[in-house]
């Protein structure tokens, strides 16, 4: 092992691999400090170069279809300058990460941040490796460093040449005087090109491994149930009643340690363990279980809606320019208290009705599942999580084990969409494995998934505005009601909307409930966008403005928005004047640093059936490193939101989710998919990095709803749109 030197706060550690190749670990400031104190003996790797010039690149983020396992290798390969066909992907070792001061900075995977926020240190890892290879070649050849070119896996100087693999071992011993800067846009050879995701072939022949596919010798199966009314507690269960059923091995109580279980905390519940999962599920279904349903037992979505409607009819709490992005456009120079008076005094007032969006669930195609093997000296876990490091620490904490002896293995995930941040199935799996002394695979039934998921919370919103002589708003009061556990989810996209109304006041109220809520692809914007972007159309219509022209006018000087809006005007064939039953609608929502515009064409049949004929997207995320993946994600998030817009909506009665499988919670299917979806990447390029995994979702429902209005004259203010009478 070769000790490396700290060149600056971002330093590198290099060693030769057993195969004689080069392993380069890029360390971040926190690790650098630890190393300087003598804790840096550990190797922490981002990439390995084998003697045959194959580069294995590590990804700390999880792959759930969004492309992390390709994007991270692309960013490293861009700097390293290695042919893409020489690149292999390696999942990060969570144990190494958590036991080395978060070696990879973070393993959290969400918020569309893998590229947008993490590219500086990921690209740096590749750049550092490249410069060490050049130095190694210069030293061996006895030539000046400036003459050595590293390109496409080859090092050359004059008539001398060799592969990266030839110099990998030498490069391990190199010290750089200065770390190189990462490349800027314009210098890229790989980033910006269409690259197929590396995980695709494993997903066409059944070889991709998900937690549900992992098998450990001696493994048994568990079906689980937590209280159907969230926050409720297990009182008792009667194992004697089921223990003679085929295959049944045990029943295990899962104990909740916190008064109120939030996020990934263990919830009070019970598991039945059997030789086969279907035996466990059947036995659990008939085992007598007594629950104390707790405070939520009488709540319903209907009662919650009544409460929200009551709150929204009264003044809410004033939201000021604070809290990061929330309210950034609520001008602090405005006398917010004077805004209602301005509206009352106006001769042209627009009073909005109440809009709403209901609860939605994640329903990832893979239900929550985990395999755990708890032994005396080590613990192995495979689980559904969007943060392997955090889940590992939670397992160690729950079992009272040293994190060094806990191994949480990264697999493919069958979806995520934010749901993988709030699961506690890893806790259940290790609790059961520890209790029975055997490895166990826990799988949720779909019904249990729907019942326990951290749902997307409902939102209600309304507004009142005064228009000036030019038909544009001069004063606007918005009032949104959200869930008190996540206030931001009802304010993103409205408090910080880009439309510059001179006098604004934004009010907020909250309902409370026992229903767990969490991140749900483009959280907040996914619901508020539906309300704001229909409000905008109503304001434009009241003022005699074309809705697209209104948006262009109201965002003057805002280059990222103008780029999107002007492209919509030029390329979409925009018109609000179509034949009877046909409509075109537009909407633009900013989320994750990306501005996404949608133009929807719909046809409404005489019987009121909605057909979404075409969706066109105009997206500005600043940069884009893989346009193919960007288009895939735009299509994906658009259909995700179209599904909720047309069919979604969870109902809650007696404190529990009522529709708990795909027969009662309908999903968009292939026949409902718009025949044409176009994705235009309108990039500002040299400006900033926005995310791309989510932003095309939020503008989709309001664009469709606006199109429905132009087709029918009916404004639909809630979802599912398919239940509207058209």
């Amino acid at each position, binding site marked *: 092992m070769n000790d490396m030197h700290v060149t600056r706060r971002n330093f590198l550690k290099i060693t030769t691999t057993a195969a004689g190749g080069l392993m380069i670990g890029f360390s971040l400031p926190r690790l650098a400090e630890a190393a300087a104190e003598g804790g840096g003996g550990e190797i922490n790797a981002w990439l390995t170069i084998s003697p045959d010039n194959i580069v294995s690149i590590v990804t700390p983020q999880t792959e759930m279809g969004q492309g992390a396992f390709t994007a991270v290798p692309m960013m490293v390969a861009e700097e390293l300058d290695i042919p893409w066909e020489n690149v292999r992907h390696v999942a990060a070792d969570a144990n190494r990460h958590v036991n080395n001061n978060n070696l990879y900075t973070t393993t959290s995977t969400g918020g569309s941040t893998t590229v947008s926020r993490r590219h500086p240190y990921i690209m740096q890892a590749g750049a550092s490796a490249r410069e060490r290879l050049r130095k190694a070649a210069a030293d061996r050849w006895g030539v000046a460093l400036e003459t050595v070119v590293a390109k496409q896996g080859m090092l050359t100087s004059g008539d001398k040449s060799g592969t990266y693999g030839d110099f990998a071992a030498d490069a391990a011993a190199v010290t750089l005087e200065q770390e190189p800067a990462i490349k800027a846009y314009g210098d890229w050879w790989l980033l910006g090109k269409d690259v197929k995701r590396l995980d695709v072939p494993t997903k*066409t022949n*059944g070889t991709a491994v998900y937690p549900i596919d992992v098998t450990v010798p001696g493994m048994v199966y568990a079906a689980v149930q937590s209280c159907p009314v969230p926050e409720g507690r297990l009182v008792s269960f009667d194992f004697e009643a089921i223990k003679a059923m085929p295959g049944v091995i045990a029943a295990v109580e899962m104990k909740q340690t916190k008064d109120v279980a939030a996020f990934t905390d263990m919830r009070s519940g019970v598991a039945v363990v059997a030789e086969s999962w279907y035996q466990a599920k059947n036995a659990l279904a008939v085992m007598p279980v007594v629950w104390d349903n707790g405070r939520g037992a009488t709540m319903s979505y209907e009662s919650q809606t009544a409460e929200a409607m009551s709150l929204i009819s009264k003044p809410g709490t004033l939201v000021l320019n604070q809290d990061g992005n929330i309210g950034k456009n609520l001008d602090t120079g405005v006398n917010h208290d004077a805004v209602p008076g301005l509206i009352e005094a106006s001769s042209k007032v627009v009073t909005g009705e109440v809009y709403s969006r209901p609860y939605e669930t994640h329903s*990832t*195609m893979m239900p929550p599942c985990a395999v755990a093997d708890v032994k005396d000296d080590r613990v192995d876990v495979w689980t559904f999580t969007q943060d392997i490091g955090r889940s590992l620490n939670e397992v160690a904490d729950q079992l009272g084990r040293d994190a060094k002896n806990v191994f949480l293995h990264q697999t493919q995930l069958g979806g995520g969409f934010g749901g993988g941040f709030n699961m506690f199935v890893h806790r259940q799996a290790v609790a059961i494995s520890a209790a029975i002394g055997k490895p166990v695979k826990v799988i949720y039934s779909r019904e249990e998934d729907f019942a326990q998921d951290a749902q997307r919370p409902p939102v209600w919103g309304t507004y009142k505005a005064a228009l000036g002589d030019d038909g544009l708003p001069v004063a606007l009061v918005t009032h949104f009601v959200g869930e008190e556990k996540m206030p931001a989810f009802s304010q993103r996209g409205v408090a910080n909307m880009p439309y510059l109304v001179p006098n604004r006041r934004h009010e907020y109220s909250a309902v409370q409930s026992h229903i767990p809520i969490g991140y749900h692809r483009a959280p907040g914007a996914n619901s508020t966008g539906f309300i704001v972007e229909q409000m905008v159309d109503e304001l434009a219509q009241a003022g005699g403005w074309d809705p697209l022209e209104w948006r262009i006018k109201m965002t003057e000087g805002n280059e990222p928005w103008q780029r999107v809006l002007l492209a919509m005007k030029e390329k979409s064939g925009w018109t609000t004047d179509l034949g009877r039953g046909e409509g075109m609608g537009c909407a633009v929502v900013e989320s994750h640093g990306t501005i996404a515009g949608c133009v929807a064409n719909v046809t409404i049949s005489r019987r009121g059936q909605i057909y979404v004929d075409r969706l066109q997207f105009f997206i500005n995320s600043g940069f884009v490193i893989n346009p193919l993946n960007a288009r895939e994600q735009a299509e*994906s998030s658009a259909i995700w939101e179209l599904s909720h817009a047309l069919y979604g909506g969870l109902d809650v009665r007696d404190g529990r989710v009522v529709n708990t499988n795909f027969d009662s919670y309908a999903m968009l*299917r*292939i026949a409902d998919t718009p025949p044409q979806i176009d994705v235009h990447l309108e990039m500002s390029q040299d400006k900033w990095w926005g995310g791309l995994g989510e932003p095309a979702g939020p503008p989709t429902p309001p664009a469709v709803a606006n199109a429905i209005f132009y087709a029918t004259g009916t404004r639909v203010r809630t979802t599912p749109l398919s239940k509207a009478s058209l």
Partner: protein
Amino acid sequence: MAITLNINGRDMAIDADPQMPLLWAIREKAGLTGTKFGCGIAQCGSCTVIIDGNAVRSCNTPVAAAVGKAIRTIEGVSENNDHPVQIAWQDLTVPQCGYCQSGQIMSAVALLERTPKPSDNEIDKAMAGNICRCGTYPRIRAAIHKAAELGKA
């Protein structure tokens, strides 16, 4: 009890309750995990396999109903991941999370064996039982058309 299933052209002796859903026999007993569990009530299609040429939801098909029949799973589609449907799926980068795709591919293979050049409408009907939460439907539709072209060659 001892049951013999013919999976991907091979007879496999398994010990299972005849009422055990075929899905769990395939996954737990035969060890073929490409076929997925999604809903348990034949609503999502993640568990789709082909039995005697028909796309079937294995999560609510008892093992007993599959005895003596030819069962095909994703693992039996091709040796080298090169069936026209698989090639089209790769060319058009259909899978995202990939969890539903074994079922999607099995439904597509069954469709193309019966209808070598399906229309959009026939595709919509044949694929109606398969949900994709990642929303890969536009690419599935295009890939089936492409596979139909590849299959002709």
